[in-house]
């Protein structure tokens, strides 16, 4: 192991501190026994208890999860197809326009996207609800999925698809039996990305939400306006915990697979 120089050590520490101190403060204060968020009054887990009896928060969490799952699934299907066409479609007419338009929402300000979707949904449906949030989230999440999937497809050996077609598979059959199974990890991470994007979106959701469709970020934001309660700290800590466990599991599984593969290859040669 190489020893780090003082300069590197300092920048590393500062960088990580910048990233993680806010979260650590939040986690520490979620175990605060007092009512005031900023004054430490001894260790306690009571806010976790009250959180699980707060119907409004639990409802919002349930709505958020349903929205996120639906969004992630829709965005993955659409984004994968878009990515596939962009990489494999060759030089069809309007390709540049299509790729530009597929990626534009990535840099479009959320406020503008939210506002335009609000206007569209008003004309289309009249009223807002969970469906409109799902549609709105799908719109911007699918761009991220298509970026992830198309970058995977760029490094995909095209001769695999040619081999499948050479052996008698139709283009659809080739996609389902060869392309999709091989790029599946990228599709899965696209799904997870879309899921987290939907989970933490506040701006767009607040434009297109309606009665009975309050997502967790909206709920937290409105609760904070009345004063930050330690309950919200507890809720946020739980969310951080879930995300951490998810990311760790995914990377561990992936690493084990890579190690196994390397071992196999060594044994084969």
């Amino acid at each position: 192991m190489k020893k780090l120089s003082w300069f590197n050590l300092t920048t590393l520490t500062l960088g990580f501190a910048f990233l993680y101190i806010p979260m650590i403060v939040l986690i520490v204060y979620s175990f605060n026994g007092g009512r005031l968020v900023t004054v430490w009054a001894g260790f306690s887990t009571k806010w976790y208890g009250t959180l699980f009896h707060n119907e409004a928060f639990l409802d919002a969490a349930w709505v958020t999860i349903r929205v996120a799952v639906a969004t992630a699934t829709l965005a993955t299907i659409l984004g994968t197809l878009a990515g596939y066409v962009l990489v494999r479609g060759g030089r069809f007419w309007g390709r540049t326009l299509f790729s530009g338009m597929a990626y534009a929402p990535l840099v479009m300000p959320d406020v503008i996207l939210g506002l335009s979707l609000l206007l569209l949904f008003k004309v289309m449906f009249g009223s807002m609800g969970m469906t409109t949030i799902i549609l709105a989230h799908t719109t911007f999440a699918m761009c991220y999925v298509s970026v992830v999937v198309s970058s995977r497809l760029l490094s995909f050996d095209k001769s695999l698809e040619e081999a499948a077609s050479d052996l008698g598979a139709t283009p659809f059959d080739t996609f389902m039996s060869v392309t999709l199974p091989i790029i599946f990890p990228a599709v899965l991470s696209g799904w997870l990305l879309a899921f987290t994007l939907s989970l933490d979106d506040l701006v767009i959701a607040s434009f297109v939400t309606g009665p009975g469709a309050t997502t967790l970020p909206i709920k937290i934001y409105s609760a904070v306006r009345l004063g930050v309660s330690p309950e919200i700290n507890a809720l946020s800590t739980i969310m951080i915990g879930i995300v951490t466990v998810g990311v760790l599991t995914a990377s561990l599984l992936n690493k084990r697979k890579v190690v196994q593969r390397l071992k196999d290859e060594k044994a084969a040669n």
Partner: protein
Amino acid sequence: MAQSPRPSSNPTNVFAPWNDPNAKPLIQFKNVTKRFGDFTAVDDLTIDIYEREFFALLGPSGCGKTTLMRMLAGFESPTEGSILLGGQDIVPVPPNKRPVNMMFQSYALFPHLTVWDNIAFGLRRDGLGKDAINDRVKEMLRLTRLDKFAKRKPHQISGGQRQRVALARSLAKAPKLLLLDEPLGALDKKLRNETQFELMDIQEKTGTTFVIVTHDQEEAMTVASRVAVMDHGKMVQVDTPAGIYEAPNSVYVADFIGDVNLIEGNAKVEGNTVTIHFAECAAPITAVCERPIADGQRVSYAIRPEKISVNREPLDDRANHVKGKIEDIGYLGNVSTYHVRLPSGELVSALMTNSRRLARRDFTWEDEVWLSWTDTAGVVLTE
């Protein structure tokens, strides 16, 4: 082996459908041109390939050989001209509907499927019954000696085994035509030599027509019944390996296949004998030439190093003798290459078998020697 496709000692049994005017070709390229933008990959090419042939496309990279193969597989379509398979135009037929299979340079094995499932992939698309698929996969595994590896994934087997899986997969559907794109490029030399003979064996056993793309001339010569030497989208010469080697039709072919000495000079014609004057102070080279050559024409004389013998004295039974000085000796164990400088300045290489132990070798550096060869040993080329 009554129907061996390889030339045998019995002349009535020689496999040479290209010389038989009644033979029906399996594949016909008719004035095929393929352009990519401004670049012409295949230039107005016409060729017939016959059933049971092992046809090699040989040439440097960018000569159009891979494009030609991809047009047969259906991945590219010709800009002009037509391609017939068994008399039918296959240009409009998509790759998945052609009775043609291809073995890819990268093998293109499906990494998520086992060896068994890789081989069964094409059979399943044919809608065969389960038993029929099982039987055929087993047969293919036996043919390629992969029985033990059926349950493994491609990354769990060695390079040579992967190559055999790719071959088994492309042969499983019993195609009329098998295309091999640099099939042995990824193997080391020893394994490559073994595999070449295996390929020929399998080709004979299955009776499939093989078209192989390679840039390795040794490989093409070993496996093929006919070799097409390609350059800039054209076939410069199509002939048997022996024909290509012994009677190249151009300087390009002579130079591309094997080692050759090329000597330029002016031709003087007397009947079918040509004398080539290549230097003021040197005796002319005498050669027998079937091709019509104009008197005084500038020609290249091509002679292979192994056709020249190196001796202390000129050999009287040979038509050509020149004196020179040994400049370099390349010792390869079984043979030695002598680089001999002629008084006129040309450097000629000659190959001699080391029939004696090295300690008893006759010549060494700076020795004066005589080079001798017959009047039929070389070829007179006009291009």
